[in-house]
């Protein structure tokens, strides 16, 4: 969607002939890609469309006229006038010879190999009719010492099994790990006949993208322990779906068995515009939580002091009656609702209509873990977060600026994109954050600003841009609105030197196509309005969006959908108008957002809450305050997959169906609507959120929709509104608020997702728990030395608001006085350490002796 004003240099085209077919491709294309593009299949083992070619396996042989020998098509560039044959006798003989060499060592254990049925080597061998070998010596055999098995089954990661005997040494796993993921936990060791793929000595293959290595293995050398030996691939059916643990919505495919109503695995369904065929381990193993034995099976109702299982009819009737009672006695202003931004469009819109039309309240929100929410509809942050962003545009950007984001944890797909842009082009990449992040390994330079000085840093960038290019329009007007208004003091406050700021400003001024990504350090900040205002100023001054894209990226699978459907008290005026037209009215009350509802609850002025798929007691900042707030409620109904801290406080708990159990649509961070098909029937008695809301509405004799068609049409109409908010017409005031710091709490705490977990649900996925099962305190080597702690030692983390204990993990990336704590584990509630009012969460740590 971004408008690029630069014209791409004209690409030279070349025309060649493949199998008597004339093919025209851009110069630089390989013969293999030219053939694939023309629909001509050439077998490959080591080649991968998103990696550099190495020509290791030799199976992609083709015959090219005037070349004396067969050529590997993956590493031969197509040139004008080339005449290529891919199916001639000599090519077939060549392939057969390559297969014979590969099979010289490859075991013929297909009947017991889990790859059987979807193995490239098996298929090719079958196709070429090779039934005997001329090699009569023994095959090379790796045997694991001490393992009484002829299978060389080696566990090299929490979920990966390696069989070195089956490995054909195509290096695809090692290459993708290093090249595409920037991870170094698998390698190729020894040489010649002794060569083997293995985990780095003494380490495990446990990076956040490790599942992809199994998926791209052309033989059965790498297998997932979650899938192997459970079912043969030809007994399964597949269902297209999407990853709902991430805001980019990678495309995935579920393998399931209809008679068993069970999903067996997830693989990627390559979509070059979103995921390039790489999915995170969370997307790959996340499906397991659907089959967790902890799933809520029946509705629960509080009777006396205990929650007891009841039938749906009873629970639904009770919810409808209680809501009506509260409405009658206290008014609909005393009812509020929260819906998770990972729910599908149907559920979100049903929720909006249920709250606004059936109950008549405007107290609703989808922002379940954001710390600061503006009252005004036209906030600077709304502008920034509503901007269009296209993932694939990263590929061709020449300046990529990542601001305040720990990309691998927040936006893994975009991290891989930037990595690819680096591998195949020469973009300038900058990572700017308040602490060191892993994703900075793709950056030309990493800048660390002082905690809580995001807006000062951006002001500094503006001032540096003015110094670099005094001709920029409105420079004086800007200087009057910001403080500090001189470059040197801004540089001093944010801790990035004036020289560096100038160099950064220069790249932003000179960049031809810029991708500017704003992350959680801004989105979740108490002062995100000020920071967003500074970013609006920067864009106005330098004109980033006129040469690219700049946005605070959405964090959840359907955040943009929720925004577009108007799931906030004060939606975009167009959305509000559309809803009013559809429903013939809109609640007149102003309505409270998440934060506002919580304070109303605390005051006793909000008595009932409807919560769909969210767990604020565990996820919203300041655990104690939130728990106290929820205790004040008269009536709480929560629908979720599992029992959580929030359902424990509920009067009625309803079992929610997961995204695999019904067809749903989700809007990714680009605004792209994608569908996740129904893979299995809802387990136990669970129901999708839209069905639950329809049931309650029907019980209240106020039906939500006359038909599914009506619901869909309403959604179409609301989504048709443009919710992109225009950039402000003038520079905005940016006065940095004071940062409170108590010398007794000298260390900055960062709370976020572990790379193998998302939010509070993934600890129910067995495979993900194998990667990480407990909270930890990740701290810099300096801090580890200072407190004399090593991996696994227990430390106490203490803030003004709470304390907790967790084992230490010495970080490979963090530097200085900063610790990271994952928020994904119910036994270690990270939100108990933080307050809603602080900009930076300061803590102190102590070693727990003994």
């Amino acid at each position, binding site marked *: 969607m971004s408008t690029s004003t630069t014209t791409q240099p004209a690409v030279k085209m070349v025309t060649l002939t493949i199998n008597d077919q004339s093919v025209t491709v851009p110069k630089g294309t390989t013969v293999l890609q030219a053939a694939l593009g023309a629909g001509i299949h050439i077998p490959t083992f080591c080649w991968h469309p998103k990696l550099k070619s190495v020509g290791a396996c030799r199976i992609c042989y083709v015959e090219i006229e005037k070349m004396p020998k067969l050529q590997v098509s993956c590493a031969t560039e197509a040139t004008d006038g080339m005449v290529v044959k891919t199916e001639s006798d000599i090519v077939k003989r060549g392939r057969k010879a390559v297969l014979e060499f590969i099979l010289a060592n490859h075991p013929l254990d297909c009947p017991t190999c889990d790859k059987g049925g979807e193995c490239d080597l098996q298929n090719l061998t079958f196709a070429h009719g090779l039934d005997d070998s001329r090699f009569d010596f023994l095959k090379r055999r790796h045997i694991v010492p001490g393992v009484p098995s002829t299978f060389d089954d080696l566990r090299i990661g929490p979920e990966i099994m390696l069989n070195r005997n089956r490995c054909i040494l195509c290096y695809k796993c090692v290459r993708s790990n290093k090249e595409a993921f920037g991870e*170094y936990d698998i390698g190729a060791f020894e040489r010649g006949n002794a060569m083997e793929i293995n985990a780095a000595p003494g380490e495990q293959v446990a990076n956040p993208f490790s599942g992809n290595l199994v998926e791209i293995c052309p033989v059965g050398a790498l297998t997932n322990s979650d899938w192997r030996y459970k079912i043969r691939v030809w007994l399964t059916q597949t269902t297209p779906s999407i990853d709902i643990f991430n805001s980019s919505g990678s495309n995935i495919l579920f393998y399931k068995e209809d008679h068993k109503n069970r999903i067996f695995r997830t693989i990627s369904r390559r979509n070059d515009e979103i995921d390039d065929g790489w999915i995170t381990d969370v997307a790959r193993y996340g499906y397991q939580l659907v089959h967790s034995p902890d799933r809520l099976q029946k509705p629960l109702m509080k009777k006396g002091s205990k929650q007891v299982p009841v039938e749906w009819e009873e629970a639904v009737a009770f919810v409808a009656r209680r809501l009506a009672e509260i409405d009658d006695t206290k008014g609909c202003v005393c009812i509020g609702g929260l819906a998770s931004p990972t729910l599908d469009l149907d559920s979100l819109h049903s929720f909006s209509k249920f709250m606004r039309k059936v109950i008549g309240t405007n107290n609703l929100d989808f922002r379940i873990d954001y710390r600061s929410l503006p009252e005004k509809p036209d906030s600077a942050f709304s502008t920034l977060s509503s901007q269009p962003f296209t993932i694939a545009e990263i590929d061709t950007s020449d300046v990529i600026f990542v601001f305040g984001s720990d990309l691998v944890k927040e936006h893994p797909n975009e991290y891989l994109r930037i990595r690819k842009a680096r591998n195949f082009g020469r973009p300038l990449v900058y990572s700017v954050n308040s602490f060191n992040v892993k994703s900075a390994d793709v950056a030309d330079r990493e800048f660390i600003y002082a905690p809580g000085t995001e807006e000062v840093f951006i002001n500094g960038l503006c001032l540096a841009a003015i110094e670099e290019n005094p001709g920029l329009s409105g420079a004086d007007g800007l200087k009057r609105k910001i403080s500090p208004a001189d470059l040197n003091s801004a540089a001093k406050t944010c801790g990035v030197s004036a020289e560096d700021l100038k160099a950064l400003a220069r790249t932003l001024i000179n960049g031809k196509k810029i991708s500017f990504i704003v992350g959680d350090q801004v989105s979740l900040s108490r002062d995100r309005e000020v920071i967003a205002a500074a970013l609006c100023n920067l864009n106005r001054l330098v004109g980033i969006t006129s040469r690219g894209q700049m946005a605070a990226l959405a964090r959840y699978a359907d955040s943009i959908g929720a925004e577009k459907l108007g799931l906030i008290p004060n939606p975009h005026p167009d959305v509000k108008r559309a809803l009013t037209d559809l429903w013939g009215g809109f609640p007149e009350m102003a309505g409270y957002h998440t934060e506002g509802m919580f304070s109303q609850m605390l005051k006793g002025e909000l008595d009932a809450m409807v919560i769909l798929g969210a767990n604020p007691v565990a996820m919203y900042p300041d655990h104690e305050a939130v728990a106290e707030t929820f205790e004040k409620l008269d009536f709480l109904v929560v629908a979720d997959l599992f029992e959580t801290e929030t359902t424990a406080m509920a009067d009625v708990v309803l079992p929610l169906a997961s995204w695999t159990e019904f067809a749903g649509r989700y809007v990714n961070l680009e605004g792209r609507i994608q569908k996740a098909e129904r893979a299995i029937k809802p387990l136990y008695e669970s129901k999708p959120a839209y069905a639950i809301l329809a049931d309650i509405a029907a019980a209240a004799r106020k039906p939500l929709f006359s038909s599914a068609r009506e619901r869909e049409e309403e959604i179409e109409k609301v989504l048709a509104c443009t919710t992109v908010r225009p950039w402000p017409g003038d520079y905005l005031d940016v006065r940095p608020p004071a940062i409170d710091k108590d010398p007794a709490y000298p260390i900055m705490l960062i709370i976020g997702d572990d790379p193998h977990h998302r939010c509070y649900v993934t600890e129910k996925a067995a495979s993900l728990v194998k990667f990480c099962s407990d909270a930890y305190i990740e701290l810099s080597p300096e801090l580890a030395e200072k407190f004399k702690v090593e991996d696994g030692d227990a430390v106490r983390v203490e803030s003004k608001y709470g304390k907790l204990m967790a084992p230490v993990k010495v970080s490979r990336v963090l530097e200085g006085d900063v610790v990271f704590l994952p928020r994904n584990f119910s036994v270690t509630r990270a939100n108990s350490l933080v307050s809603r009012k602080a900009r930076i969460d300061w803590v102190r740590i102590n070693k727990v002796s003994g």
Partner: protein
Amino acid sequence: MILNKESVALMQKKASQYPRRKSGILPALTIAYRQVGHLNDQIYREIAKAINVPYVEVAEAATFYTMFPKQPTGKYLIQVCHNISCALLGADSLVEYLEQKLGIKKGETTKDNLFTLISVECLGSCATAPMMQINMDYYENLTRAKVDKILEELRAKA
């Protein structure tokens, strides 16, 4: 730390001379081998840290080069070439003679920890076959008498 300060400083100096840091791995392995006499996982980790390259790439390079012993050896590592030229001129019987003389089998170390005997691929000195390398030095045009003398001299030096 197994590596001493001098080794680390030298590795860092060498690594800084290449356009890509990765190219510093092989010199670093050689420096480590010269200091320690063999290589292991711990040393790979220290090299990775010293010249700021991924640990796995150090391990890959080290295991690729069979010339780096991965276990402690005797003070003198006798590497007899067993490739074609040396083999034709009696490398096999030379190994047998050494085994007899030292009282060990190929791949073993003498009890006094003085000699380790292995045979290796071509050392690029076919014109002077049969030959062997002991630690960093070549011994060429070998005969049994020459071997006796060499071993005696080394024993005297030790």
